[in-house]
């Protein structure tokens, strides 16, 4: 089946988009990761690393480089990619758990989406039967969603990338499972995110945009599936948007005055580097004006929604250990330094 005429994407059969894309990912990064087609998972090329705690994650595809692009030295041991915007199934997560298990236990990094939580839960139940030691950390950093009892709670957004990097670095240093999980929980505790969508996106199988924005309007408080956000407002300047985003994030995070923070500005996939950097310039100023100092910064596409236009800010309050874990060497398809 060819892409529909109105859908202009690099695509063969839309139903095989995820598989075809992972084949390409593996071809592009052979020293870093492998695509285990039988199990539908991506695993670290040199894994499992003897004695090391395994760190895995997974989620709906369409948010690349999350999670598959973060498999490699110093970050994830395996990733379970679902269909586009659909959680992976327990079989995949179980296979990823086994692929990452070198005997020291496995950390499951789970974004707080109903589908992901339930599929990881079922996989963890199955892994326990197999005798694997699994700890689960649920990431829920999205301040756009009300976090009240009886609801599904907040989505896991950009903090997921930070958890993967920082817990991954702790695991790479040979820390024990409870310590690695502790790092992950500290990050979840001290990170918040807020996203803005300037367009929707077109899942390959659906073949049309999830929603259409009227001229001059944008979505505030979006997630990572191209779905509408919390509210629709008129377009405004980058300066005004930055002020709004920073205020949403900091109000909820309530950082220690003068705290060093890591600021991650992730594009949603379709926003070019020039616009992201322009927005980052405004965000950086707003953060400093609010009395926090972005001592580590990262601007690019890290957690996305296909070709959606937009961006999300994640702010993490840092301490010395987190800074040192952040600076530790990493070599994945999408994040690389120190090696």
């Amino acid at each position: 089946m060819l892409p529909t005429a109105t859908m202009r994407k690099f695509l063969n059969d839309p139903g095989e988009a995820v598989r075809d894309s992972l084949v390409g990912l593996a071809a592009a990064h052979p020293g870093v990761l492998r695509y285990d087609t039988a199990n539908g998972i991506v695993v670290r090329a040199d894994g499992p690393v003897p004695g090391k705690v395994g760190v895995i994650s997974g989620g709906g595809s369409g948010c690349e480089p999350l999670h598959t692009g973060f498999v490699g030295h110093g970050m994830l041991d395996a990733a379970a990619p679902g269909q586009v915007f659909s959680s992976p199934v327990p079989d995949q997560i179980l296979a990823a758990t086994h692929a990452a298990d070198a005997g020291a236990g496995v950390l499951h990094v789970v974004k707080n989406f109903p589908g992901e939580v339930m599929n990881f839960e079922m996989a963890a139940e199955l892994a326990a039967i197999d005798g694997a030691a699994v700890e689960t950390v649920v990431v829920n950093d999205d301040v756009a969603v009300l976090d009240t009892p009886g609801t599904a709670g907040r989505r896991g957004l950009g903090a997921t990338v930070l958890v993967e990097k920082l817990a991954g670095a702790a695991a790479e240093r040979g820390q024990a499972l409870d310590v690695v999980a502790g790092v992950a929980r500290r990050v979840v505790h001290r990170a918040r995110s807020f996203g803005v969508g300037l367009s929707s996106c077109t899942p390959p199988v659906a073949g049309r945009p999830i929603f259409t924005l009227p001229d001059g309007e944008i979505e505030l408080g979006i997630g990572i599936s191209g779905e509408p956000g919390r509210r629709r407002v008129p377009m405004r300047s980058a300066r005004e948007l930055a002020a709004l985003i920073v205020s949403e994030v900091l109000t909820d995070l309530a950082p220690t005055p003068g705290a060093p923070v890591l600021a991650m500005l992730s594009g949603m996939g379709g926003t070019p580097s020039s616009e992201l950097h322009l927005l980052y310039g405004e965000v950086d100023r707003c953060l400093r004006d609010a009395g926090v100092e972005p001592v580590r910064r990262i601007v690019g596409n890290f957690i996305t929604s296909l070709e959606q236009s937009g961006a999300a800010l994640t702010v993490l309050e840092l301490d010395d250990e987190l800074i040192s874990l952040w600076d530790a060497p990493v070599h994945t398809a999408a994040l690389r330094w120190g090696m």
Partner: protein
Amino acid sequence: MTDTSTTIDGRALRTWLHEFGLRVAENSDHLTALDSEIGDADHGSNMHRGMAAVVAAIDADAGTEPGPLLKLVGRTLVSTVGGAAGPLYGTLFLRMAAAAGDAGPLDAAGFAKALRAGLEGVAARGRTEIGDKTMVDALAPAVDALEARLASGAPLDTALAAAAAAAAAGRDDTAGRVARKGRASYLGERSIGHQDPGSASATLLVEAAVAALGTGADGQA
């Protein structure tokens, strides 16, 4: 006096699942359209992928016992659907399988009991109550109606018809609610005015039961 004339065997369940598969295929775009409004536009394709796998799996399987068959269905859904719907529909059938056990064909009451067990599994897995604007809002009234009609002596076909009507009413009610579970909950008040996609697919499941089981499930009513 409850309906004991009907027996639901593996063949009847296969008919039900084929019917559900057909309805999901026919309504795949509609389910995805509903999911586009307040979700991520994949409920139709998720269910379609899952039910195609289920139909293939049960066609390839020679077993005649309800218990193992329902377990195969549940496992297949868990392994192919993904998203929220996979664990939920998977759990529904796995719990039905557990309730059916290996006691052979089910009578109407046994079928209702299995469905109740499935519903409870869904609510537990999803930590959902009725009114959260999920598939439970269609399933729960359907199981209630089925039990009530059977308890008052109605035959299975009448009871299932009432269950389907209750499911559809529950589904329609979701439009007026604020979502508290599922992705639609992220929209808060904005979810009002849109029908929950999972309640729509769950209604198809009950309607498929009317068509497949309602007139004497073993074909000999």
